[in-house]
């Protein structure tokens, strides 16, 4: 059954009313925003930087492009894209959560990146841009928090220019049984403890682990992208499938 036909949706392992999910996710990110970067490094042992590098290498972003870094959080990808598009391009850092946007804006300004970056609070399901106006859209570790993923993918497709591409970097499913067991133990035991110790918030990190398990696997997400209209869709697994990078084009 399609998500859009349901009145409820998942919030980690819980089932909640659809209209409640956005505010519950917002609470999670308000809570973790200040410690987001340090927790990312701790939780992934710094590997998230390599996953993001791979996404940038596959983005095809060039000088003059308009790039939307959706659910951009604290702006890791925006920082790189800002340099790649140069003065004639622009990067829009979009996030539904204003706390994350503020942390991202402060961080990027401290890095001296100001001239070609815009900060827009937005809902991925209804993107506030004209049709065919964006060259590249990236959404890194954000899609699983979106209530109606199909609506979000259609919205992204609408605003992409013909020839443009969407990149989705997201936690996914590993094929290896041994790795899966280690990963589960880490996610449900160590991760909330680390969240408690560093950010004084174990519940948000429990949600993180649960939301990853509820997110569609590689093939399902690829199918969802195709349903939204994307062509030449493909994905590459990283770190044994713990993370997957999906790519699709609009022609």
């Amino acid at each position, binding site marked *: 059954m399609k998500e859009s036909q349901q009145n409820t949706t998942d919030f980690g392992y819980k089932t909640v009313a659809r209209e409640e999910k956005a505010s519950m996710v917002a609470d999670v990110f308000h809570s973790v925003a200040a410690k987001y970067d340090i927790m990312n490094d701790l939780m992934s042992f710094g*590997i998230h*930087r*390599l996953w993001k*590098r*791979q996404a*940038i*290498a*596959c983005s*095809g972003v*060039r*000088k003059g492009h308009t790039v939307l870094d959706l659910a951009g959080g604290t702006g890791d990808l925006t920082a*790189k894209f800002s*340099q*790649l598009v*140069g003065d004639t391009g622009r990067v829009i850092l979009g996030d539904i959560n204003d706390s994350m946007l503020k942390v991202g804006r402060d961080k990027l300004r401290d890095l*001296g990146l100001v001239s070609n970056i815009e900060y827009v609070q937005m809902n991925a399901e209804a993107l506030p841009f004209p049709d065919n106006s964006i060259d590249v859209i990236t959404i890194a570790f954000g899609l699983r928090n979106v209530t109606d993923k199909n609506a979000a993918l259609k919205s992204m497709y609408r605003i992409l220019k013909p020839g443009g591409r969407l990149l989705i970097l997201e936690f996914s499913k590993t094929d290896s049984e041994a790795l899966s067991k280690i990963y589960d133990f880490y996610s449900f035991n160590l991760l909330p403890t680390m969240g408690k110790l560093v950010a004084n918030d174990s519940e948000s990190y429990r949600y993180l682990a649960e939301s990853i398990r509820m997110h569609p696997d590689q093939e399902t997400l690829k199918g969802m992208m195709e349903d939204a209209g994307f062509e030449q869709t493909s994905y590459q697994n*990283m*770190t044994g499938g713990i993370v997957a990078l999906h790519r699709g084009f609009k022609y």
Partner: protein
Amino acid sequence: MINTLLTAAAERILNKILSLEPSLLASLGKIQHQVLAVEIRDWQQTFAITFTGHSFMLFNNYQEHVDCHISASIETLSQLKDPSQLTRLIRQGELDLEGNLHLAQAYSQIFSELDIDWAEHLSTYFGDAAAQLLVQQLRNTKQRTVHLDDVLKTTTIGLFQDELKVTIHPIEMAQFKAHTRELKQHTAVLEQRINQLLAR
């Protein structure tokens, strides 16, 4: 992932070099935002480099459109320290180049002219005199190492050539075999005569 990690480390080194030699910025300005891809045949890997105006970005397994694509072995690439070698290597078929030749030449030129003033940078940590002394010592050590390497190579080559002199030449071997066969025949004749004498 290991390749991505190594590429990230190389990118940090390149950007550190850039911060130590800011005069590079003027040369790099001309090739800003152009992408050079280098395919290393030995490793079957393609790396791409671009200068964004602030820093270098380096990618592995880059499959996007590039302004210039070079394909060569590590040994050939090491010869590109001298930009004048580029056209010779292309003519000899040791290096394939597609796209903007000037971009490859510009990168080759920039890295060949790299001359970091290490004493200047180290002086902030150790003071002027100590930094100068340290850099001088390191230069001397490098020179001694290069000299030692030359001596070692010459000695090794000499030893191998001497070895060739004491090795039996194929003609000598053939002569030795002929003598042995002759001796064997004589012995057989002698044995036959002794047997005849004994039989009487």
